[in-house]
C-alpha cells in the first residue's frame, strides 16, 4: 500500500501549528495541575473534615470518570454557564488541569506521606512551625520521590490532550482528523500524528530523566 507523502506535506504546516497548540495546552495543564494538585494534596492530609471531604469528592470525581466525558461536560456545560459562550481552548485547558490536578494531588499526598514522621518532629523541635517544616524539610525530600510518577502523569497528559479534538480545539489530533475527512485516508494522518506525539513524549521523558539525575546527586 503506498503512503502518500504529498498529502502529509500539504498538512505539514497545520500539523506544526497543531503541535504547538498541543504543547501549549499540555504545559498549561501541567502548570495549573501542579499548583492545584499541591494544594489539594496537602489539603487532603488536613484533619479538618470540611477541607478533607470535599477534596476527597473532587479526586473521586475527576479520577473516577473518563476525561472524554469531562471534556464534553466542561465544554458544553460548565464553560457556557460561567462565560455565557463556548470557548474550546479555555474548556480544553480547564479540563486538562482539573483532571491532572486530581492525579497530581494523590502523587503529592503519597510523596509527603512517604517521608518519615521523625523528619517533621525534628523540624518542629528546631522551632519551625508546621508550614515552615513542610516547605523547608518535608517537601524538598518528597519532591525527589514524586518526579517519576509526576513524569508519568505529564506524559499521559500530552497524549490525552488529543481527546480535545472532539470539541474542535485545533490541536494536533484535530488536524489529523481534518486530513482524514478531506482525503478519506487513515494511515497518512494517524501515523504522522502518532510519530509527532512520540517525539513529544520522548523529549519530555529525556528531560525528566535529566532532572531526576541532577536532583539525585544534588
Amino acid at each position, binding site marked *: 500500500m503506498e503512503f502518500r507523502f504529498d498529502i502529509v506535506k500539504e498538512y505539514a504546516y497545520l500539523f506544526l501549528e497543531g503541535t504547538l497548540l498541543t504543547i501549549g495546552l499540555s504545559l498549561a495543564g501541567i502548570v495549573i495541575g501542579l499548583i492545584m494538585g499541591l494544594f489539594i494534596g496537602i489539603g487532603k492530609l488536613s484533619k479538618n473534615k470540611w477541607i478533607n471531604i470535599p477534596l476527597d469528592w473532587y479526586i473521586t470525581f475527576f479520577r473516577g470518570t473518563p476525561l472524554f466525558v469531562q471534556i464534553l461536560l466542561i465544554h*458544553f456545560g460548565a464553560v457556557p454557564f460561567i462565560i455565557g459562550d*463556548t470557548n474550546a481552548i479555555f474548556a480544553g485547558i480547564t479540563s486538562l488541569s482539573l483532571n491532572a490536578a486530581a492525579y497530581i494531588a494523590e502523587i503529592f499526598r503519597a510523596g509527603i506521606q512517604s517521608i518519615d514522621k521523625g523528619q517533621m518532629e525534628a523540624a518542629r523541635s528546631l522551632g519551625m512551625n508546621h508550614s515552615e517544616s513542610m516547605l523547608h524539610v518535608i517537601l524538598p525530600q518528597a519532591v525527589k520521590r514524586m518526579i517519576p510518577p509526576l513524569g508519568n502523569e505529564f506524559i499521559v497528559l500530552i497524549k490525552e490532550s488529543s481527546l480535545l479534538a472532539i470539541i474542535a480545539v485545533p490541536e494536533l489530533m484535530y488536524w489529523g482528523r481534518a486530513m482524514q475527512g*478531506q482525503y*478519506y485516508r487513515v*494511515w497518512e494522518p494517524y501515523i504522522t500524528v502518532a510519530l509527532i506525539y512520540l517525539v513529544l513524549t520522548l523529549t519530555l521523558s529525556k528531560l525528566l530523566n535529566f532532572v531526576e539525575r541532577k536532583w539525585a546527586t544534588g
Partner: protein
Amino acid sequence: MNKASIKGVFIVILIALMGVLVACSESATGDGKKKLEVITEAAYAPFEYMDGDQIVGFDIDFIDTVMKEAGYDYEVKNIGWDPLFAEIQGERADIGISAITINEDRKQTYDFSVPYFESTNMILVPEGSDIQGAEDLKGKVVAVQNGTTGQAAVETLFGTNHEDIKKFENNVLAIMELVKGGADAVVADNTVVIEYVKNNPDKKLKAIKDPNSFDSEFYGLMFPKDSELKKDFDKAIKAVIEDGTYSKLYKEWFGEEPDLKALKAQLNK
C-alpha cells in the same frame, strides 16, 4: 535469559505474527463467487443507523435493491467511519455505503459508483440571526461535521481548513456548539437539518436554503481502486433509478418524491 534465547523468542513471535497476517489476507480473497462484504458506519440517520441490533436506513434498503438488480449475494457490517476507509483501501471489504460524498481528492484513493443520491446543504442558525444565506456566513464561525458535504460547502466559500470552520465528530456536537453560542451557524445535509429543527422546537433554530451558493453534492458507493465491481453496480444503480424503484424507496424514507433532474444529469455525463 541470555542474548541468543531472547533472539529466539523474538523470531518465534515474528513468525507467529506473520502467520496471523497471512491467514487474514487469505480469508479476504477466496474465489470469485463469494458473498460481497458491504461495510458502513451505522450512525447517520436516516441513511444508516442501528434499530436495536439491526442496521436500517435508506442506504441499507437501497443497497439491497441494487444487489438484487445486479445479482449479488451480500452481507452488511457496521464497522465505523475510519475503519471503513482502512478496509476498503486495504481491499478487505468490497463496498462501502455510508452517505459517502464523491469528490476529486477522494477519487485519488478510491473508486466510486455513479452517484445515487443528491444532497443539498442547509444553513442552521438561531432564530433572529442576521444570516440570510451563504454570503452572510463570511466572517462568521461555522460548525460542521468533519468529512461531510457541509464542510465541503463551507470550505468552498472560506477556503480549505479556514480558521472560522470548526470541525466536529458529528452533527449533534456541531449543533450543540451553535446552541451554546460557540458558532454562528451550522451547515449540514438538508435531511439532518430539517430533522433536527423538527425534533427540537425548544432550541429556537431555523433552517435556511441557499441553492444558488451551495452546489449539490452526490453520494456514491465506494470501492477499492480499480475494483471490477464498479461496472456492474453502475449499471444496476442506473436501472433502479430509471425504473422507479428508487423513487419509491426515497418516498418511503423522506416522505416526498425525489427531484431526479440533477441526479440524472450526473448519470448521463
